[in-house]
């Protein structure tokens, strides 16, 4: 029997039972659609994480105090008091592969402006911070090197903070009180939006690190140093220079571990991607279960169909169908069901993904890979779950099949 004829017969057979064919396909449609949508959500998450990290600047290095391991005991990174202002200044002075450097400190607290107040994080940084982050000022100015040296009580506001504290007027030249210390607002940052974890990056106040350390946190050492290398290619060089310099300054013996941690964007990206990969795999495996159930649905219907069409099989055999013709016919029917279901499911999955995108504001990406994967998976399911019923049909004895009531 020619392949075209087999296909024609299969289509006719499925057409004879439109409702049943549709319901059988529904299992595959939902399964494939779910797999596509879930993969799109996972990959969308991964993409946005990578975007966020890239937005930090690709040639950015971060130095944190604290060793990754000390005598076998892991301490929380940042808890050690090993990173000083002098370290940061030395890096700026002695590492040629370093372009910009910004020491960093943290504080948090209640901020008051007039009769409004707001609770937010205060980041203390150097004057090159915005160059490293590539974060422009919307209006006003950034504080100068002079302000840093003098530990001036100046600050710039993230967009969220500015909106909440100064809903009507411009915050520039106004005074706010951070934990009762008055700060003059010199500028407002452009809006950066949420980061990959859904945090509002604009809910922040940025002040000179010297001021934050002396007036707010009272913690003499740095929490981090943000560094940009001269170029992406110089990243490993910069990392090596900083490591060597800090080891020397901290008098670390040759076989002892570093008492600081240098992280670059690639590391961050790898960590974040690993998390979203787990999310993707989890979502896809849940969706695969429904695809599997859809496949079992096909087998179920094909088995019913073989029993119900026993007489038809007998007729076909009596007029010359060989076992393999019957086998291919039923296999092709199962395959057509799963393929059509797969195609509709892909369309549904793509549509569903964009609906999720627009309603839940979650980025979704449908990749060619996920389409090929679910398409291939639905073919495999058609063959796998179609084979047993098809074989059962092909093995029938024509005389018994003809007599079947």
């Amino acid at each position, binding site marked *: 029997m020619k392949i075209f004829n087999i296909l024609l017969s299969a289509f006719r057979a499925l057409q004879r039972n439109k409702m049943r064919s549709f319901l059988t396909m529904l299992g595959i449609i939902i399964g494939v659609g779910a797999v596509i949508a879930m993969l799109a959500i996972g990959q969308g998450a991964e993409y946005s994480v990578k975007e966020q990290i890239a937005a930090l600047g690709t040639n950015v290095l971060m130095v944190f105090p604290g060793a990754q391991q000390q005598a076998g005991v892991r301490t929380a990174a940042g808890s050690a008091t090993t990173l000083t202002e002098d370290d940061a200044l030395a890096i700026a002075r002695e590492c040629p592969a370093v372009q910009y450097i910004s020491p960093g400190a943290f504080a948090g607290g209640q901020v008051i402006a007039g009769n409004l107040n707001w609770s937010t994080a205060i980041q203390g940084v150097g004057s090159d911070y915005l160059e490293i982050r590539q974060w422009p000022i919307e209006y006003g100015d950034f504080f100068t090197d002079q302000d840093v040296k003098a530990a001036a009580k100046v600050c710039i506001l993230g967009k969220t903070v500015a909106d909440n504290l100064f809903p009507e007027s411009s915050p520039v030249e106004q005074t706010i009180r951070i934990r009762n210390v008055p700060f003059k607002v010199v500028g407002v940052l452009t809006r950066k939006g949420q980061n990959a974890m859904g945090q509002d990056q604009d809910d922040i106040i940025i002040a000179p690190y010297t001021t934050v350390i002396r007036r707010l946190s009272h913690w003499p050492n740095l929490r981090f140093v943000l560094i940009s290398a001269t170029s992406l290619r110089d990243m490993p060089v910069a990392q090596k220079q900083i490591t060597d310099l800090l080891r020397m300054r901290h008098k670390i013996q040759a076989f002892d571990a570093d008492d600081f941690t240098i992280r670059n964007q690639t590391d961050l990206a790898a960590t974040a991607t690993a998390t979203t990969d787990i999310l993707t795999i989890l979502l896809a495996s849940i969706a695969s279960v429904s695809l599997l159930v859809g496949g079992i649905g096909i087998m179920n219907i094909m088995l019913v169909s073989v029993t119900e069409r026993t007489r038809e099989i007998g*007729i076909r055999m*009596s*007029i*010359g*169908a*060989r*076992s393999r013709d019957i086998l291919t016919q039923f296999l092709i029917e199962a395959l057509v069901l799963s393929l059509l279901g797969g195609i509709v499911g892909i369309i549904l999955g793509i549509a569903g993904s964009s609906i999720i995108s627009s309603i839940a504001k979650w980025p979704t990406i449908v990749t060619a890979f996920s389409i090929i994967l679910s398409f291939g998976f639905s073919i495999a399911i058609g063959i796998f779950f179609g084979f047993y019923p098809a074989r059962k049909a092909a093995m029938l004895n024509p*005389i018994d099949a003809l007599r079947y009531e």
Partner: protein
Amino acid sequence: MIAEHQSEPAGDGGSLIQIEHLVKTYQLGEFEVHALRGVSVRVSKGEFVAIMGASGSGKSTFMNILGCLDKPTKGSYVLEGIDVGKLSRDELAAIRNKKIGFVFQGFNLLSRTTAFENVELPLFYGPASNKERKAKAIEAIERVGLGERIHHYPNQLSGGQQQRVAIARALVNDPSIILADEPTGNLDSRTSVEVMGIFQELNNNGITVILVTHEPDIADFAKRHIVFRDGKIRTDRTNTSPKVASEAIKEMPLIGADEEEAA
């Protein structure tokens, strides 16, 4: 009017069917059922044979073997020079496709499938091209006089019309023999005679027809009667003056004709 049929001597090339000492034994649990106990018969091209016998006489088993649906336990069955008993399942399927046209009591049409699609079905399992297939199917349907109902579904056709579709299907591949198993069993007497008329017409055009029936009235339309009993041929005789369906129909009352046309 009825004379004993003389079997021709073995070895001539004219026989379409040559059956020698056919034995069929079934194993039913612990019991052996001897359905056929040594049957020898020859059928030449162009014959119209009625196979008769009570149920359990072995005529159905004989029919299944004749139709290559079943294989004999012993003995030989040569169809147009091919020893069918030695063929595999797939080869038998090919023989059924090319050389045998089946007509059943219950019509056995595919439901929810048009007359045309039913008739072209055997050609799907052969080498015919799409064009050939369509042309042949249309020709076969027109031959049984159903040209106007070519795209009707079986449930839109009367019993007689359905049986004519089945005959068209049997004809479509130009078979060597048409095997009809109680083809009038589900039809009223007038329609039965009409269907027998089609068989007679086909037979007059040179097609070999073998008919299984238990109704003597129907068997009267055939040219030869073979009667089975207890797995053996009891009588085998020529019907020297078979009834002619086209004449018989004129003598019949018009009951059932309305139904045929209304369907």
